[in-house]
Structures are given as structure tokens and as C-alpha cells.
């Protein structure tokens, strides 16, 4: 393949197959393996990572080849695997054909449902990301869920989970996307409800599944709508079905797509993304999903599941681009939803006491940024934000897990059981702070390069209002993360976190059997026999009572989870784990906060490193050489030749002129005729840049041309704009820090209890505390009304009306029968019969004496009669 493709690219479809097979193996033989199946999970993720890295490397080569050399359109068909489209680009900044292979799943009515791969920069980036994060999370889980009663099941589910995301990421068509999408839904159900003994956990799992499923209506409907809209066109021009991602993209940009169909399809698909990516108003399942084990939360919130929605929008970007007229209008469905999401979820993060819930709302808010970027035409920054966000968010979750694992006795309650942990857990705290700063967007950490780019580009593309919303969001992000950091790692130790000092104070008096004080991380031996020490569990029950001796808390037997606030499934869930997975924590459990073992720290540190540095892969601030993402991930918007694209799109012919500069420059078509006068900034601002002739996304491609990606614009980096957002973030960080110090440490009079005293603050607090009453609306109003009155009503109708009709007919039939029987049969018909009978009876009675039973009399009668007749005869004859 002349370097244009390679084994890894051609066989990228293997990437999800490996964990898929591993899943089956874990289920079948996992329990018999020495590490109970976890080794299979880790190994499969490692293999996937290797393949992903290989694919990424070859993709970069492919792009380089396409850009650097002048290779006449080459293509290769890989035999035996159905259609295979690979191509090298001729030269210049042409659209680099993705490596597409597909295999027909089944066909009906000319439409084929396929399975295949669609490998381009976005897919390669996501494959790497998913495999990498999954691998780290699995390694982390080796320690974190050790000794869990469903250890094997956990690894099976989490492996399948990654497989689902990988299937979706390299999906060649919508059916495959649905497949991966739903597999993730299933696995999230299994994993969130991992400790299903507790009803709160299974309820949270149910909620997650059902909420996402509500969105899935949109996925099914949207896929159907787009399929029928596009199928004829794609069959004719590309020889693919209307499910094909590439086909849909090209169709959307072809100018031949019906606007109504596009709009409905895009709206439906976006509804699916709202459900999956936790956008307002279907974000409510995400915080509840914290009921799952922490590694699950981290995986769910960083690279899989929730970014699936964002990924789908990025994947089918041309469809959304055209449907919502992204370049022309300064407000659309996506940005409105995203804007609302950013703000409301960031606000909610302020009132959470549960550290994981803070992170959950933070995820919702960050997903809002990604959606905002996509909605406002900032495709690349949004995709880049997926990339950077995965690292620091995963890191944050794993730090939270580390804290609860080793610092707070499985409690996630910041106000009760944490505080001052920085001294005890320096590595965790360091990683946390790095990730926090990255999340807040502090220069030069990764979050800065992606988030600032989103904000910048949103403004650049004419969505100014949303730029300010995003800035406000950044301010809030800095604020709530500082609060969480302060509560967790600084200030006074509280609750479980305070146990160490309490123990030290109690000294040798607490000399409990089996509690060896010198328990370091490496000596963290699982000791199933050691069982749970419920007493320490109770430590957290001593909410906030700093310094209470654990001795007093001891003696409360049993599992503590029963005593928890049932309204808080997340907290509840982790406590259940605490009980169930207690054995593994061994003696270390019996001590106050300490640093976590290596298996936990290594993934955390790796992630912190990436949170620190990932931004440099597309550091716009440092000039074009740093913009690797733009070069390799963003498809070049260039009309390919339709003829060449034909049934097997391949090398496109294009204008070579100025192409080399196009890739680094903007690819906006600066054609006044294609823009309305009111169309936003790009036209004016880009004036000075070199333009090229691609009109993809603005005008229909010329006859015989075909576009696969719209020409998105890129704002030029300006330090002045970046400074603005940095200042906002800085204010957020510092301001929040001082408020926290005043509120939580110095107990400043004017602040403590403010929410009780001041009516507006109280209302605001209550409003936030109740999560805008959305849960109330969904659960109490909608679900309860469906599950109870409506379903019961339907059942009542069934039993009484429909069945009533049937039974009524039966009863009516019987009654009619009865009436007929009594009145007609018995009286009229039978009456006649009876009457004749009675008459006969009467006559018989009268004649009874004649029948004496005596033969002689009969004889006499006979002869008498004969004689009489004889006489009559004689008389008559005479």
C-alpha cells in the first residue's frame, strides 16, 4: 500500500473484537484463572492499545504521505473482506480518505446493514484514548475492587464496556454506532448497579439505563430518518447504504439533501446525544451513576459512554452542520442546550458534598463545552477537549477513588470525612491539583489549550453570547473545583480523615488485635479472613465530629450501610462496597488516612502527567508547528472528485494550487455570494488569510464533486483573548479559595449559615439542592404517573373495559341464553309439548280402569269389540 495504509489501519476492526472476545472468555472461564479473569481484561486492553497506537502511527504516516509526496491515486482492495476503500491522496491538503472496510451483516430491500471500520483522524484519536484510559482504569481496578464478591463480573463488564465504545468509535455505519451505543448502555447498567444488593444502587442503574434509553428513541428515529433520506443518494453516488457514516456526511453536504429530513434527523440524533452525554434536561442520571464503583465512574466520565454523544455529533458533523446551519446562524439547538448545561451543572457542583458528585456535575458541564464547540462550528477544539478532558477527568476520579480507598474509609462525603488529606496523601493530592488546574484551564496545562480554544472559536464564529456563557462557566469551574480541593485536601481533617490523629491520640489504648500500625502500601495483603471491621465503618457515622475517638464508635455491629441516608445512592453504594469489599483492604483499613498502594498511584500519576502535557499536542498558542491535531485529526474539507469517489471513493483530484498552505491556514470559503450579509465573523476576520477554493459546507459541491467534511473555521490565537479567560479563571480560583477558607476553616460569621439567613440565598440553595426539581419532575411526576396511575389505568381498562366487554359478552350470552331457556324454551316450546303431554295423561287416567292388567278382561273387551263391530257390519250391510 505504498505507505498510505498499513496493517494496523487495515485491521483496526480487530481493536474492539479483542476485548469482546476477552469478555466472553472472562464470563466462561474467568473464575478459574489465577487472577479471576482480571488478567484477561487488562491484557485485552493492552492489546487494543497496541493496535490503536499502531493505527495512529500509520494514520499519521498516511496523512504525511498524502500531504508530502505526490503519489498518483493508489488504492488497494483487500481481498476477502468485502468492500475496502483505501486510498492515498495525491498531494496537498486533500481530503485524506478514511480507511473504510465493511462487511455485510445482512441485506434487505437493497439496503445492507454492515459491520466495518471507518478509520480517520477522529477515530484513531478516540481509539487510542479509549484503549489507553481503559487500560489504566483496569489496572487501577485490580487494587480498587480487589476482593469484591463479583470481581470477575466486574472485569467482564468493564471490558465489554470498553469494547462497546470501541465498536462505536470505529463504526462504519449507524447500525454499528447503535450497537456500540447500546452495549455501553447495558454495561453501564451492570456496572452502576454493581452492588445491586442495595436497592438504591439498582435504582440508580435503572435510572441511568432508562434515561439514556429515552434519548435512544432519538437515535432509532434519527437513524431511520437519515437512512431513508440518504439511501438513494448514497447508493447512486457512493455505492453505500444510507447508514454509512461517510455516505451520510457526503449526502448532507451535497446540497441535495432535503432540509426537512436533515433537520428532523439531526434533532432526533441530538436528542440521543442529550441522553447519552448528559446534556440538559436529561443530565440527571449522571450524578446518580456515581453509585457505581469509582473506576467505573472514571471510565464512564472520561472516555466512554458520556462522550459517545459528543463523538456522534463530531462523527456526523456534516449532518448537524447543515441541519442547524451552524455557520450562518448564531443560535441553534445544540448551542442552546450546551449553554444551559454548562451553567446549570456548574452551579449544581457548588452544593454537592459528595466529591464524586462534584466531579459528575463537572463532567456534565465540560460535556456542555464540547457540545457548545460543536454547535458553534468549533469542531477541532471540541474534539481536542474530548481528548484532554479524558485525562484530567479520569485522573480526578481516580484521585477521588484513591482518597476514599485509603483516606476516608469509603466515604465520598467531603464535608464529613475529608479535609487536610494533602499531608497524608501527597501524591494523590498532587495529582488532584494538577488535574484540577487542568480542568480549570490554567496555562499551560492541557485544559487551557482545549477549553480556551472552544471559547475563542465560539466567539470567533459569531456566537458571542455563548462565548460569555462559556467564560462564566469557566469561572464557575474554577470556583467549584477549588472548593472541592479545599474541602478534601486542606483545612481541618474531619470524620474518617481525622481517624489518624484520633488513633494517635488514643495511642496504644486502641491496641486492637490484628491492627498493626506499620502498614505500608506495599504490605497491603488481602486477607479475606480478616473480614470487615464494621466498627470503623461507623467512623464515618460520626459525621463531622472531629476527634471523636473511634473506640466510642465501636461496638455497632453489622453493616453500616443500612443507616445511611437512602436518598443518596452514590454514598450508599460506596458504603455497600465498603462492607462487601472490606476483606481485601486488610489491616491497612484499620488506620487513618495513608497513601494508596502503587497499583492505584501509578495510573493516577500517568494520567496527571498527561493532564499536564496533553495540551501541547495542539497548542495553538505556540504556533502552527504545534497544531498536530489540526493536521492529523481534522479532515480536510475539500471537494473530492465524484467520479473517482464513485462506487469506491478514492484518490481525489483537486486543485493543487495553494493546497499546501491550506492545511495550516483556514479553509473557509470566502465567497460573499454564499454567505448572507448577516453571516458571522469568519468572513470579515479571515480577510487577511489565504483562502482556498473549498466550499464544503457552504455551497453544494460542483457537479461531480463530493464533500465529506465542512470547511470549519479556526480562530487565530490571540494572547489578549486568552488573557481574558485566564483572568476569569484566576479570579475564580483565588476568590473561591478565600471564600472556602473563610467559610470552612475560619467559620466566618458573615458567611456561615448564610443560606439559612438570607432568603434569596436560601431559595437559591434549595433550588440547587433539589437539582432544579428535575428529578422530582421525572421521578415523582412523569415516571410515577406512568408507572402508577397510567399503567394501572391501562390495566384497569384492560381488566374492566376490554376484558369486561369480553366477559360481558360471555355473561350477556349466558343471560340471554337463560332468558331464552326460561321464557321461550320452557314456556312456549316446552309449554306446547307439556300441554300435549298433559292431555295425553288425562286421557290415560280416564282410561286407566280399562287396563286392569287382567288378560281375561282384555280378551272380553277384544271379543266384545269384535262382536260390536260384527253387528255394525251386519246392520250396515243390510
Amino acid at each position, binding site marked *: 500500500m505504498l505507505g498510505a495504509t498499513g496493517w494496523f489501519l487495515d485491521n483496526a476492526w480487530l481493536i474492539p473484537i479483542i476485548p469482546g472476545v476477552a469478555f466472553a472468555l472472562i464470563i466462561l472461564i474467568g473464575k478459574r484463572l489465577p487472577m479471576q479473569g482480571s488478567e484477561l481484561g487488562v491484557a485485552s486492553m493492552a492489546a487494543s492499545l497496541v493496535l490503536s497506537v499502531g493505527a495512529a502511527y500509520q494514520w499519521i504516516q498516511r496523512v504525511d504521505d498524502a500531504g508530502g509526496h505526490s503519489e498518483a491515486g493508489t488504492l488497494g482492495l483487500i481481498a476477502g473482506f468485502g468492500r475496502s476503500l483505501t486510498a492515498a491522496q495525491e498531494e496537498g491538503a486533500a481530503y485524506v480518505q478514511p480507511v473504510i472496510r465493511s462487511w455485510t451483516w445482512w441485506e434487505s430491500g437493497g439496503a445492507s446493514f454492515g459491520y466495518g471500520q471507518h478509520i480517520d483522524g477522529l477515530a484513531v484519536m478516540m481509539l487510542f484514548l479509549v484503549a489507553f484510559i481503559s487500560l489504566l482504569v483496569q489496572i487501577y481496578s485490580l487494587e480498587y475492587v480487589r476482593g469484591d464478591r463479583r470481581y470477575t463480573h466486574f472485569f467482564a463488564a468493564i471490558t465489554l464496556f470498553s469494547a462497546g465504545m470501541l465498536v462505536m468509535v470505529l463504526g462504519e455505519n449507524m447500525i454499528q454506532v447503535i450497537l456500540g451505543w447500546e452495549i455501553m448502555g447495558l454495561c453501564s447498567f451492570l456496572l452502576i448497579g454493581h452492588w445491586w444488593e442495595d436497592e438504591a444502587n439498582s435504582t440508580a442503574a435503572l435510572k441511568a439505563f432508562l434515561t439514556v434509553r429515552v434519548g*435512544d428513541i432519538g437515535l432509532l428515529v434519527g437513524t431511520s430518518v437519515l437512512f*431513508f433520506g440518504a439511501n438513494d443518494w448514497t447508493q447512486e453516488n457512493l455505492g453505500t447504504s444510507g447508514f454509512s457514516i461517510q455516505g451520510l456526511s457526503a449526502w448532507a453536504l451535497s446540497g441535495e439533501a432535503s432540509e426537512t429530513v436533515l433537520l428532523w434527523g439531526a434533532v432526533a440524533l441530538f436528542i440521543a446525544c442529550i441522553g447519552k452525554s448528559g446534556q440538559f434536561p436529561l443530565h440527571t442520571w449522571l450524578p446518580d451513576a456515581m453509585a457505581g464503583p469509582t473506576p467505573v465512574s472514571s471510565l464512564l466520565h472520561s472516555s466512554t459512554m458520556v462522550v459517545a454523544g459528543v463523538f456522534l455529533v463530531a462523527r456526523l458533523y456534516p449532518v448537524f452542520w447543515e441541519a442547524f446551519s451552524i455557520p450562518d446562524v448564531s443560535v441553534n439547538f445544540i448551542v442552546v442546550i450546551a449553554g444551559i448545561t454548562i451553567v446549570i451543572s456548574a452551579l449544581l457542583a457548588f452544593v454537592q458534598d459528595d466529591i464524586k458528585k462534584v466531579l459528575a456535575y463537572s463532567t456534565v458541564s465540560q460535556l456542555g463545552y464540547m457540545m457548545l464547540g460543536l454547535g458553534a462550528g468549533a469542531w477541532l477544539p471540541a474534539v481536542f477537549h474530548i481528548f484532554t478532558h479524558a485525562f484530567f477527568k479520569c485522573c480526578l476520579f481516580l484521585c477521588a477513588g484513591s482518597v476514599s480507598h485509603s483516606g476516608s474509609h469509603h466515604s465520598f462525603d467531603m464535608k464529613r470525612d475529608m479535609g487536610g488529606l494533602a499531608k497524608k496523601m501527597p501524591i494523590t493530592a498532587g495529582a488532584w491539583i494538577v488535574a484540577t488546574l487542568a480542568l480549570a484551564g490554567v496555562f499551560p496545562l492541557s485544559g487551557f489549550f482545549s477549553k480556551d480554544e472552544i471559547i475563542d472559536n465560539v466567539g470567533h464564529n459569531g456566537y458571542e453570547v455563548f462565548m460569555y456563557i462559556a467564560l462564566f462557566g469557566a469561572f464557575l469551574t474554577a470556583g467549584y473545583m477549588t472548593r472541592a480541593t479545599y474541602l478534601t485536601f486542606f483545612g481541618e481533617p474531619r470524620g474518617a480523615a481525622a481517624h489518624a490523629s484520633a488513633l494517635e491520640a488514643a495511642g496504644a489504648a486502641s491496641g486492637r488485635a490484628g491492627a498493626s500500625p506499620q502498614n505500608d502500601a506495599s504490605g497491603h495483603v488481602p486477607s479475606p479472613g480478616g473480614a470487615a471491621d464494621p466498627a470503623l465503618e461507623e467512623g464515618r457515622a460520626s459525621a463531622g465530629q472531629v476527634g471523636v475517638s473511634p473506640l466510642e464508635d465501636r461496638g455497632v455491629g453489622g453493616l453500616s450501610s443500612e443507616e445511611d441516608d437512602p436518598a443518596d445512592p452514590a454514598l450508599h453504594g460506596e458504603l455497600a462496597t465498603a462492607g462487601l469489599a472490606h476483606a481485601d483492604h486488610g489491616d491497612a483499613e484499620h488506620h487513618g488516612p495513608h497513601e494508596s498502594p502503587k497499583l492505584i498511584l501509578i495510573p493516577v500519576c500517568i494520567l496527571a502527567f498527561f493532564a499536564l502535557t496533553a495540551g501541547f499536542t495542539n497548542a495553538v498558542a505556540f504556533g502552527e508547528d504545534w497544531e498536530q491535531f489540526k493536521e492529523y485529526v481534522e479532515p480536510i474539507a475539500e471537494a473530492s472528485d465524484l467520479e473517482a469517489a464513485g462506487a469506491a471513493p478514492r484518490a481525489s483530484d483537486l486543485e493543487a494550487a495553494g493546497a499546501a498552505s491550506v492545511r495550516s491556514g483556514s479553509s473557509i470559503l470566502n465567497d460573499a455570494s454564499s454567505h448572507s450579509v448577516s453571516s458571522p465573523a469568519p468572513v470579515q476576520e479571515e480577510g487577511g488569510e489565504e483562502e482556498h477554493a473549498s466550499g464544503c459546507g457552504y455551497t453544494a459541491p460542483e457537479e461531480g464533486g463530493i464533500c465529506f467534511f465542512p470547511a470549519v473555521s479556526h480562530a487565530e490565537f490571540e494572547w489578549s483573548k486568552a488573557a481574558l479567560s485566564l483572568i476569569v479563571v484566576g479570579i475564580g480560583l483565588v476568590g473561591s479559595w478565600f471564600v472556602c477558607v473563610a467559610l470552612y476553616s475560619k467559620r466566618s460569621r458573615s458567611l456561615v449559615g448564610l443560606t439559612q439567613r438570607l432568603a434569596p440565598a436560601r431559595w437559591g440553595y434549595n433550588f440547587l439542592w433539589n437539582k432544579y426539581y428535575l428529578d422530582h419532575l421525572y421521578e415523582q411526576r412523569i415516571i410515577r404517573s406512568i408507572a402508577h396511575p397510567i399503567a394501572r389505568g391501562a390495566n384497569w381498562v384492560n381488566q374492566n373495559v376490554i376484558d369486561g366487554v369480553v366477559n360481558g359478552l360471555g355473561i350477556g350470552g349466558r343471560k340471554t341464553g337463560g332468558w331464552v331457556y326460561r321464557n321461550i324454551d320452557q314456556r312456549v316450546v316446552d309449554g306446547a309439548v307439556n300441554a300435549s303431554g298433559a292431555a295425553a295423561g288425562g286421557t290415560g287416567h280416564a282410561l286407566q280402569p280399562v287396563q286392569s292388567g287382567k288378560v281375561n278382561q282384555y280378551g272380553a273387551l277384544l271379543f266384545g269389540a269384535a262382536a260390536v263391530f260384527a253387528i255394525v257390519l251386519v246392520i250396515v250391510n243390510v
Partner: protein
Amino acid sequence: METITDQNWLLSVGTFLPLVGVLVMMVIPRAEEQLHKLVTIVASGATLAVGIYTATQFDFDRANAMQFYVNEEWIEVIRSNYALGLDGISMPLYLLSMVITFLVAIYTWDNMPEAGNPKAFGILMLVLQVGLAGTFVAQDLVLFFVFFEVVLLPMYFMIGVWGGAQRQYASLKFFLYTMFGSALMLVSILALFFQTGGESFGFLHFLDVAGTLDRDVQVWIFAGFFVGFAVKVPMFPFHTWLPDAHTEAPTQGSVILAAIMLKLGTYGFVRIAIPFLPNGAREWAPVIGILAVIGIIYGALGCLAQTDMKRLIAFSSVAHMGFTMLGISTLTEFGINAAIFGMVAHGLITGMLFFVAGSVKHRYHTLEISRLGGLLVSMPRLGWILGFCAMASLGLPGLAGFWGEFPAILSAYQPGFGLSEELYRVLMVIAAVGTVFAAGYLLWLYQRTAFGEPKAEFAQPVHSVSAAVNQEHDDDDHHVELHDVNRIEWIAWTPILVAIVALGIYPKLLFDITDPAVSDLVARLGEHLQP
């Protein structure tokens, strides 16, 4: 439609072979219970073997042709022939009936319903199988009707003798309801016969003359078929016999009822009502579509209100068959293919759910959802199987249920033959909402039965949470009363579970068989449709 008459004895053998088993059982004394069970298994197994042989002889490249076609004089005086044939539409269902009956026979080895008497039970089951298989291969309306009715009686007795507390009511309702439908269908059969000149009852004859009838006549005749088949499907509002029959029937009866008998109705639509009466079908299609979608939502709501596990599963059939009927009502290749896939998938999945419900009942002696709970703790394997089936039933991609559901929804976007697109798109969205409800009631059921801790009345004395903490392999617990899935159950269930996964991963398996036949059907529909 072309016919292939090679090896045309195969279908007769496959259909009537169970009767040999019946004859053998008649001469064996009643007391030999195990022997009777064995004979049932052997007879149904032999039937299945013939069925599999038939499948191997089936020419898959010509799945649209009527293969193994027999056409012999039968009742000359009414022009009815003994005509059997198998094509891509009937083949999956024909095999399904054999597989299910065989597995049910195996299951009966260990799980005889309380009333006992395996002799009568086995005989009824085999006779039932004759009727079911016969219905799917009959190519003559009178013969079809005979088989269609033969099915009723064994099922009536199965429910009435081996059923639950309300069995008398349920069995009578079932019987009368279906008889009512059949009566109207008979009228339609006769009307069709005489209206088309009274020459023959053969399916092929009707296909030839299809569409020559006046549109209004077709509409009326279709009405009769509609009621007859809709009762069997069952479609809203003719569904009320179903929950009662299912709830009261013994496990075996429920499984056969759900897995195969309901398909007689949908099969009737695809095989008879629609191809014979193209114009009638087009006029009726919106009605069918609307009722189907009402059924989807209504069945789901019904499920949410149930307190009995078996009744809930029964109601879910109403919803699932709604998807099937929606697919059929679009009159497109997509939709009808989806419908046939849906029939098979529903047969496997819901059949399996009834098996699980039966085993739960066998162990707990109750199916009250509120009394169950913690199935995963007390019987992990059974619990996971239930979860697997629930996931398959709610249409998870990768399992069989999805391929019946999603294409049906998809096809509703663009119905065929000038049916109102606006109406069908609304139906599509509502049907998609139905999938959420499906997830809702199934997961809710699963949460309440499988998750959590077992209820006090069924809790195992040894098995408490604290004990479980230290157990790595909680699956290996030994329970005295609540034993997990036993060997017979594994044997009976594994093929179904494998089939659910296999069809989910590789739907081509089924679609390749049905597609040629269905595309022929739709093409013929287009030719015969009057403007």
C-alpha cells in the same frame, strides 16, 4: 410462484411423525410415567431430526420457491387438495415449532406440572406439534384451517387440566375467543373460495387470481381474516385471552403458546391475508398499524401494572407482537422481513422467559413479584439467565430481539404502496417510545426479582450477607431448597440461549432465508394491486 417437488415426502413425514409417538404412547400403560416422557422426547426429537434434514435439503438459493411441494387430491367434492410446501417464510417457523416442542419435551422430564399424567400430557403435546407444523406448511386453505383448529384442542386441555387455579376460566376463554376468530375466518375462506370462482382452495390458485376481486369485496373478506388472525396474534383489542391463558397455563403450555402459537396469527397475515387480498390489505394496513402501535404502548403499560411475573411476561407479548404487526402493516420488504425475524426472536426470547418463570414458580411456588427478590443471590445462574433474556427482550443490539424491533421501526418511516407517510412516521415515533417502556418494565421486573437480598420467607439460613462477603464464588453455594439451574434445564435452555446470541450476532442467518420469499411477496403485491 414456482414450485419444486423434489423429496416431497419430507414435509408429510415431518408433520405427522409425532403421531407415531402418540400411537406408541397409547399402547403403553399409564403408570409408566418415565417411559412416556421418554417417548415424547424421542418422538419430538425424531421430528426435529426430520426437520433439520429438511433444512439441509432446502434450496436456499431459491428460497422464494415453494419447495418439497405436494399436491394430491384430498376432498374432491369441495375441491380441496392435500397440498404442503415450504418456502423462506414458513421454513424458520416450521423449524422453530419443532425445536421448541423438543426442548419443551426435555424440560418436562423434570418439571411435570402438578396434575401429573405424562401420558396424556405427552400425547397432547405431540398432537399440538402436528397442528403447529402443519399450519406452517399447509398450502391449501381447508387444510390450513384444519391444522389451525387442531391446535386449539390440545392447548385447551393443557390449560384446563394442568393449569393454575383459574384454569377453567382461562381455558374456556382461550377456546371461545379463538373459535370466534376462526368462525369469521371460515366465513372469509368460503367467501374467497366462491368469489374466485370456486375452483380450488390451493394457495397458489389464490395467488394467481389475487387482485382480480373487487376492492370492496377484498376489504370485507380481509375483515374476516383480520379478526381470525388478530385474535391469535393477539392484537389490541383482541388480546385479553392471552394474559389469562399464559398465566394459568403450565410452563410448557406458556412456552409453546408464546413461542409458536402466537405466530400462527402473524404467519396467517403474511401468508394468506395480505398476498391473497392485496387491495384489502392496503385498505386495512393503517388500521393494523394503529392497532399495533396501540398494542405496543398499551401492552407496556399493562406490564407496568402487573404484580405477577408470568402475567407481566404475557403482557409483554402484546407489546412485542405489536412491533411485528407494525412491520407487517408497512407492506414493505423491510417491514415483513423484520416481522418474520421478530416472530422467531420473540418465540425464542419470550419462550425462554416463560421457561425461567416456570422454574422460578417451581422453586418458590409463587410468581408474585413483591415476594421474589434476590434471585441473583439465591440462584445466580437463573438470575443471570433472566437478565440475559430481559436484555434480549428489550431489544439490545447484538441479541436477537433488536433485529425484529429496529427494522420494524425503520420500515415505518417509509411504508409501501402509497400508505400515508405522515401516519406511519407518527407510528414510528410512538413505537420507538415503546422501546423505552419495554426497557422500563423489563428492568423494573429484573430489579425487583433479581437484585437486592432474598425476602425473608425465602432466605437461606446459611446464606447471609456477612457470609457472602468472604465467599469468592458465591455461585457455588449449596442450597437445599432453592437449587440453581439443573442439568435438564441447561439441556433444554442452552440451544435457545445460543440461538438468541447467534441470531443477534449473525442475523443474516435468518434474513437470507426470508428475504427472497418476502421480496417476491412484495413484488407480487405490487403487480396485483389495483390503482
